[in-house]
């Protein structure tokens, strides 16, 4: 249970970083922290103490079957890491273009649109 709370804390840290920091690079770091918090959460869902890889062979005993970990969350995390990479690449490229236009990373100086 504590692990889940730690994931939630990490998520909130990311959100705080995103909201409170003015530097757009730090905002991106906040997003990445949030993504990793969720990845960590997904991995903890599938965690099993003393688990083994779920490969069934002819010699697999019932005791070993009990110790199999759930492979699905790991597959999800792999996919979500790749998606996170794509998002991150696009975000960084936007930041580079913003820096070229304004010569600063400070959101309060960049921001002209009123929302």
């Amino acid at each position: 249970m504590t692990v889940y709370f730690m994931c939630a804390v990490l998520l909130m840290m990311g959100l705080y970083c995103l909201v409170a920091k003015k530097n757009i690079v730090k905002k991106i770091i906040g997003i990445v922290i949030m993504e990793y918090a969720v990845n960590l959460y997904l991995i903890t869902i599938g965690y099993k103490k003393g688990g083994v890889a779920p490969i069934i062979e002819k010699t697999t005993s019932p005791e070993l079957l009990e110790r199999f970990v759930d492979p699905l969350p790991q597959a999800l995390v792999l996919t979500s890491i790749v998606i996170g990479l794509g998002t991150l690449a696009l975000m960084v490229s936007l930041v580079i273009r913003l820096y070229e236009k304004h010569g600063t990373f400070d959101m309060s100086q960049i921001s002209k649109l009123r929302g």
Partner: protein
Amino acid sequence: MACLAIGTPAMVHHMGGWTAPLGIALVSDGLTVLLLIAVNVIAFLCIIFSLKYMRVYTGLTKYYSLFMLMVAGMNGVVVSGDLFNLFVFLEVASIASYALVAFGVEADELEAGFKYMILGSVASVMILFAVGTVYAVTGTLNMADASREIATRFGGAEMNPALLLAAAFFLMGFGLKAALVPFHAWLPDAHPSAPAPISAMLSGVVIKSLGVYAMCRVMFHVFGFASASPSSVIIADTMIWLSVLSIVVGGLMAIGQWDFKRLLAYSSIGQVGYVMLGIGVGARVLATGGTRSLAALAILGGLFHLINHAAFKSLLFLSSGAIQQATGTRDMKMLSGLGKRMPITAATTNLAALSIAGVPPFSGFWSKLIIIVATIRAGHTAVAVVAIAMAFVTLAYYVKVQKEMIFGPVRGPAESAKEVSPVMYVPMIILAIVCVGFGLLYPVLGSRILEPARDALLNGAEYVKLVLG
């Protein structure tokens, strides 16, 4: 292609031959067909419009690739029968749309794209968190299987706190994608900054397929309102509150805008509020065990407004693009008398504005009427009064659009304006015909497209049976 699916019975395709709870299923039921038609028809018309409009931009191959990626992502979201698969397609469509919003690579576009991207990423994180939680509780990612699991474990009773947390995160994530107030901050920047065909796609179908559709699918077909549990009443109430806030804030903010596209963007927030109001009222009636026919009426109103809004809002954004190209500005203070210089654009803008404002013979009137009647009959009189008042506000700001831009003496940039090329106005005329057609031909369209979609939302159990066999 999507039109071929009209009237066909619901279908399931099991990817790679793995049957439902094990493999990923692609599901096509009434609701899917409705969204597929909206997405693909509007995408097709926007691409035709882009052929001429996008000439001024460079990197057109990238533009069309991103456009296709966005359309593919939306189609994937709509047909997916698996929660994680839905998330992946949602990300595909979102990432393509972030890049498209920033496509102009000027200061404004980049800033709007960056904001949209930050908020969109937060939404994605929320959705992924909720997907993980649903998996932890039910042990499956297949929507039908998860729905069966939730119904058997919590049917009629209070839900597990973890599931409620997941529902809250889903509402937040999809609410952000659908730009419901208070998650709307990205939309009024992103929509005006994008090229006009992209604004039309974003307002017309992206916020609906990624936001409203996904929310409906998850709430109705995974969490389920049929069980009449106290938790589903809470979820339905939240949907109604979000929609009322959107209607009020979107409408009031739109009045004060002088940038045409910004006005349209705020108006989108308000109109998506109407869509969610219909669906939320329907959900609440189902969750409190009210009459099914009333719930059916409310949901029908919401879905009808969804498809109407897709038609007229994309038409309005395409018109704004035509006006911007002809005059070089979209500031309503500088424009006047466009009706004399650009008769076709002016006529389509007028038609769409009348339709969205809810003037009787057009489609917008009927859908708003159905939503408001259903809201009153469900006993939410105060909400209905707000909805009626804001319908008048909608009329007010579209009258302002017509008065300032279309009518009046020809002056300023309008003097040198010429009608845009047929490549641009033909899609606009087609959409205008659709706007009128939905209003007049409801008896034909309703039974073939809207009613299957409504029944799909009403009968969550049917969905489970369809996917799991």
